[in-house]
């Protein structure tokens, strides 16, 4: 028969052994994870597919490096550095102007624009009037009875306020001053106010952003609308071209004058300003001005791996990197910078033009 004192001793020894094993295991895990260099890359949601491909290829070329890519809305990407003070090595956003607006001079003092995108009207084979819609009549199709369409919430997502810009710019381009009201504004209560100030059109989004009709669907992020199109629950959605292509959707290529793709029409784009209903982040105001869509990246001053971060940015700008972007339907551009004097020396040999403004 086992004596109680032996039983207690046995249990204590087992606890001891288990505890030692756990401690050694944790130590081994931590030691393993210290052997690998983690490069933290935070990017705009619409870049996530291409950046995951870049991650794989970069890791193949750099054994011992673990690139950790995370996608968020562009403002949130920057807030990881400026407001949440996280150790981030590379940030890449869908609106280049956010970097100087939110990071200069404390957190960064340069950026490189490396890719572009454009706004399209995405649809599927099941969409009503799919065989009729063109770049000349899309706004007529969207307002037809029975047709439903979606866009992301402009208060929350850049693709959302860009949908408003496109529709407002359409009024100038097609010389039809009822398009914005007929397609979007008439669906809301309280109303969306549009005021002209000289040549500039200011669209004010109310604090309560609720639509009163079943014609439109609004969701937090443009990615959510893809499922609606897949299941035939809406007919059309304002989307980035890259996302429509990545998802195998059909889309209407809009005229360059309204699709926010070209520096050539910069002066036209900036005639539309979206005034958001409330200031969601104290670090950035409520005004979003029309401008060409350029993706830009920088290396925050707080990076823990400056040399590796430079390598990663160089890789994105390299021939291989550009090919990966193209394969992922992200359109690369000849790199542009706003502060050539401040970019790291490693980029100086590159043929880089200076951004205007």
């Amino acid at each position, binding site marked *: 028969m086992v004596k109680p004192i032996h039983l207690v001793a046995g249990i204590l020894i087992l606890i001891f052994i288990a505890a030692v094993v756990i401690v050694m295991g944790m130590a081994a895990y931590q030691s393993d994870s210290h052997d690998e260099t983690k490069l933290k890359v935070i990017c705009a949601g619409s870049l996530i597919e291409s950046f995951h491909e870049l991650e794989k290829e970069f890791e193949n070329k750099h054994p011992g490096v673990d690139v950790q890519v995370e996608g968020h809305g562009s403002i949130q990407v920057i807030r990881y550095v400026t407001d949440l003070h996280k150790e981030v090595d590379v940030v890449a956003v869908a609106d280049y102007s956010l970097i100087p607006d939110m990071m200069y001079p404390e957190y960064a003092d340069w950026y490189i624009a490396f890719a572009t995108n454009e706004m399209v009207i995405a649809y599927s084979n099941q969409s009503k009037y799919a065989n009729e819609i063109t770049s000349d009549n899309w706004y007529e199709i969207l307002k037809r009875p029975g047709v439903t369409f979606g866009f992301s919430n402009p208060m929350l997502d850049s693709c959302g306020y860009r949908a408003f810009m496109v529709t407002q710019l359409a009024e100038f381009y097609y010389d039809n001053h009822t398009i914005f009201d007929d397609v979007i504004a008439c669906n809301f209560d309280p109303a969306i106010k549009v005021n002209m100030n000289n040549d500039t059109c200011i669209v004010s989004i109310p604090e309560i952003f609720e639509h009163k009709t079943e014609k439109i669907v609004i969701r*937090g992020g443009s990615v959510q609308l893809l499922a609606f199109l897949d299941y035939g629950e809406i007919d059309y959605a304002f989307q980035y071209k890259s996302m429509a292509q990545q998802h195998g959707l059909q889309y209407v290529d809009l005229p360059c004058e309204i699709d926010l793709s070209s520096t050539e029409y910069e002066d036209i784009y900036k005639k539309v300003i979206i005034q958001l209903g409330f200031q969601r982040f104290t670090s950035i105001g409520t005004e979003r001005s029309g401008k060409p869509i350029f993706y830009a990246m920088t290396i925050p001053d707080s990076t823990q791996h400056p040399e590796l971060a430079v390598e990663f940015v160089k890789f994105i700008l390299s021939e291989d990197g550009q090919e990966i972007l193209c394969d992922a339907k992200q359109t690369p551009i000849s790199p542009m910078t706003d502060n050539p004097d401040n970019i790291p020396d490693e980029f100086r040999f590159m043929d880089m033009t200076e951004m205007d403004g």
Partner: protein
Amino acid sequence: MNVSGKTGFIVVIAVICIGVIVALATVVNTYPSGVPAETIDWNLTLIGNGGNELVLTFDELKELPSYEGHGGFFSTVGMKYGPFECKGVSVKDLCALVGGIEPSNTLWVSALDGYLMVFTYDQVQGDILIYDPATLREIPHTDLKMILMYEQDGALIPGDDGRPLRIAIVSSNGGFLTEGHYWVKWVNKIEIRTPDR
């Protein structure tokens, strides 16, 4: 080994075990936030529609009637978080402490990091879109409740996830996700307002 020898051996083993367990507890307690368990020094300011103000400490908040439920969310790029077991105070109850919220009001929830989200009256009542966790397709409503969460999965909310107070959309049976932008982290002010129309 005689009896006193055996007792001594057991005492030594017991002391070692206690030491290891204390060491382990310290490691677990400091991981991942890097800080040991702490007293929560946090104030929540409630502002009613008439401007009346009430400040609650974290401990005072925990003394209010609590609600437990399940909920999770997804980010704008479709990353899923949860579902979690959430415990906290009903936001509607918090509004009642400063005069209540009416259909014409909105609720401004602010956070220490400068984030702000505005909710409608209906959303505060639990009228929020919910989604299937697997497909992210919209599913019908259940008994939703908006709470100010102070416990997640039986412990304080992790630091990076909004400790000590975070908005959560929950129900008793769970099985759904909501949009992540509602889940405001580090909440320090809740204000009832009447919007300009």
